[in-house]
């Protein structure tokens, strides 16, 4: 398995994602600048948190025009796994790879905290290794208030696209939504930070199941291809 962590100017969780993948899960990972136009050699693509292009104009609104985005769309067409965390989630919704949009928190202001999450669907490519129904993940965002219209929400629910909901909604998200996939189930975005919850010394390892799920999905996928 080969992973790419995409770094836009202003990304600031790129190294955290890299360390989670490499130090904790020994995944062959490279940090790839947003100017790169070919991601064909990577099996999974991670778009990390931060403030891409300063988050000026609107979060993720400038990043969606970066050269690498065409390659990310191509990876989506091929059904590769694509993960957006925090700003990465915002970029994926701006780029139309995920439904919905992220707005300013109901109570405006950046919040850094640890929040409870319900693992709504434990069979997805991103959640198959979770053994607990609720976990604790760190959050750190000012614009994590997920919005989606009623019709789309109903479709997403029917499709099991909602993977995580907040136990105690910190930002006003519709239906307490914390993390969603696209209709195909290969693109995932969430505001909470699993990469901040993989190391015992830092005090939280609930995020390990997230990475374990992705690795298991890729192994399955590769075996399926071989067979």
């Amino acid at each position, binding site marked *: 398995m080969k992973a790419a962590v995409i770094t836009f100017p202003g990304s600031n*969780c790129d190294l955290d994602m890299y360390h989670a993948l490499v130090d904790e899960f020994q995944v062959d990972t490279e940090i790839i600048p947003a100017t790169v136009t070919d991601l064909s050699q990577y099996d999974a693509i991670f778009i990390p948190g931060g403030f891409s292009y300063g988050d*000026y104009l609107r979060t993720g609104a400038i990043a969606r025009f970066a050269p690498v985005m065409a390659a990310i769309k191509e990876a989506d067409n091929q059904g590769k796994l694509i993960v957006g965390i925090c700003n990465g989630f915002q970029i994926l919704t701006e780029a139309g790879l995920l439904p919905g949009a992220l707005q300013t928190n109901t109570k405006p202001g950046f919040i850094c905290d640890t929040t409870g999450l319900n693992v709504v669907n434990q069979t997805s490519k991103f959640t198959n290794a979770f053994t607990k129904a609720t976990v604790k993940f760190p959050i750190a965002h000012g614009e994590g208030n997920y919005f989606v219209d009623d019709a789309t929400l109903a479709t997403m629910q029917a499709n099991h696209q909602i993977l995580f909901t907040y136990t105690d909604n910190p930002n006003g998200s519709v239906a307490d939504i914390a993390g969603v996939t696209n209709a195909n189930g290969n693109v995932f975005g969430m505001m909470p930070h699993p990469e901040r919850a993989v190391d015992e010394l830092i005090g939280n390892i609930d995020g390990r199941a997230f990475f374990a799920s992705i690795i298991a999905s890729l192994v399955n996928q590769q075996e399926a291809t071989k067979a």
Partner: protein
Amino acid sequence: MMQTYKEPTPAEIRDHKIYLPWGLTEAEYELVCQKLDRLPNYTETGLFAAMWSEHCSYKKSKPVLRTFWSKNERVLQGPGEGAGILDIGDNQAVVFKAESHNHPSAVEPYEGAATGVGGILRDIFSMGAQPIAVLDSLRFGEIDNERTKYLINEVIAGIAGYGNAIGIPTVGGEIAFDKTYAGNPLVNVMAVGLLDQDAMKVGQARGVDNSILYVGAKTGRDGIHGATFASAAFSDEEESDRSAVQVGDPFTEKLVMDATIAIVKRYPEDVIGIQDMGAAGLVSSSAEMASKAGMGVHLNLDLVPQRETQMTPYELMLSESQERMLLVIKKGSEAKAVELFAEYGLDAVVIGKVTDDGMYRLDFNGEVVAEINAQDLTTAPKYNLPALKPERLKNADKNQFVPKIEDLKQTFLQILQQATIASKASLYRHFDSMVQTNTVVNPGSDAAVVRIRGTKKALAMTTDVNGRYLYLDPFVGGQMAMAEAARNIIASGALPIGITDCLNFGNPENPEVYYELAQSVAGINKMAQALNTPVISGNVSLYNEYNDEAIYPTPMVGMVGLHTDNHTITTQGFKQAGDAIYVVGETTAAFNGSEIQKMQTGSVAGQLFAFDADAELRNQKLVLTAIEAGLVASAHDLSEGGLAVGLAEAAFAKHLGFDVQFDLSDDLLFSETQSRFVISVTPSKQAAFEALMAANAQLVGQVTDTPSFKVTTQTSTVEILENEAYTSWKDAIGWLLK
């Protein structure tokens, strides 16, 4: 077509004394004329006014600052550079410094605080270091008016807006409230960085013909004369000068930071020196680099990247536009440096070169617009100001205040709601404390702890000072600031290794203020030597006054400690029911300057209670030994609010209870005697702990799983629900800010 501004001639400058509002005195102007052997032109007068301001030259505080002890076996770089550096073994070093942004934050709190974060980070990465943490030490007036609420909300938002975006965790600090800061809040920011010793850089312009490279944001008209502005006091009559405040752009700063660290790594031989453009911008950075190296510089101002048209040399040199750096690059290596910065989307332009004639020379539009000896520019006249012991100290009441406690439970709950004591979580939750995923101990414990990835090491860090103590005794209060900082580091299980400071005082020309400054520094210095924590960097902020009333002397101490093995990392919260609770150190009647005196009388008064440095050092050493031996479950320093607050905070972390008995009167639960800790110990470790601590620790009770605080004194037994205490403490700031 814009009208070209016509600058006053040298003779007009002399005749109309236009240098006076810039902070240059008549005597100083005369001295400039003597040094130059002619009248300075407009640009030169501006350069001298900025470089000779207190903010840049420390001309008034230097006789005091020079006394700081700043050398020991760890010190790789003491005061005088962007930041100080200490050896932490394995060829690694920790870099840290603190800086004040009080004046800008008073008039434009969001940008003032934001650019405070930006400025101190540049000091860290200009040494070649990767910033790993930011701490904030904030002081505001009482939360009883809209102006103060506005200042608090905007300062917090400014720190969050900048620090979160740049991706350096804000891991700690402290916030306190007192009416003394109402017209002049304090915004002190400390930054800590990590450095491979081989990559260490200093701000020096060495080597004739090496190039001066300007990097980062373009220069605009913002912040002109910010340094002079920071060297004057506020009052009701004078309109605050907003144009002297700069505007921050954390996105550009992140690019500048990443690129600067990258160039030091990629081309270590080609980067001769780095200096950030902070106070007094281009002139300060370039003149200091030249003067420290004993060299001159020759700059062509036409080459300076500009974002406004028709800027004059005066404006270009004095602008404090943010996110700019000056590098000295080895001759011949300019192209690869420019190329590296271009990778990050940054402007990098050679604007001049190093010369060997010691002259500071500026060209503009083909003319020489300044020609000054660089040493003259960076050597302001020194002032030895008179010091006078304030009346309030001479006639201080020697008796300690006696708190009135009719209902122990009520007083207990009331003290937890005092703004200075209450939880600051509703404020610091706006700061990203976890980015970089190295923060082991988050805000809310005694000291923050950040691990060093790839090693067993970790760094503990804290900021401390209680201005009320210093108001009552600047020398002893200075000692106590150091003692508390060290107790916080020790309680986290680390060895204190060094300090930085922000010396926040009033107008030093007031002999009483100067006395406070000198005495505070002496107190800090004495403890710095006793603790073996050299003063490796720092900052002075004077003229913190409103309507001629100085703030309490507030020398913030920022201390760093070293964990050589992360198994020693300890937090303040009780861990489990059944653990024994000990108090280390004697509790005596220490109430003058205390939180309870303030709460019950509205102010602090009398002679400050005594400080026993020997007891302090002994208790700290014992606690650290106990932690290192693995005998301690939790450790918490006792400070404002005394035993009552210390025990409650230890219980809040995991919502546990406690049952404690004291052979003390009720009031002593709120005494602020120094040198004390609350420690919890697992029963199996009690015997070893007691053997080590001997008479220095006293068993006072147990941690319980009943969610209540049961406290027995000589005269009372009270039981307080944990939830009631917790709510009082946690929600107080939120209620006050409503």
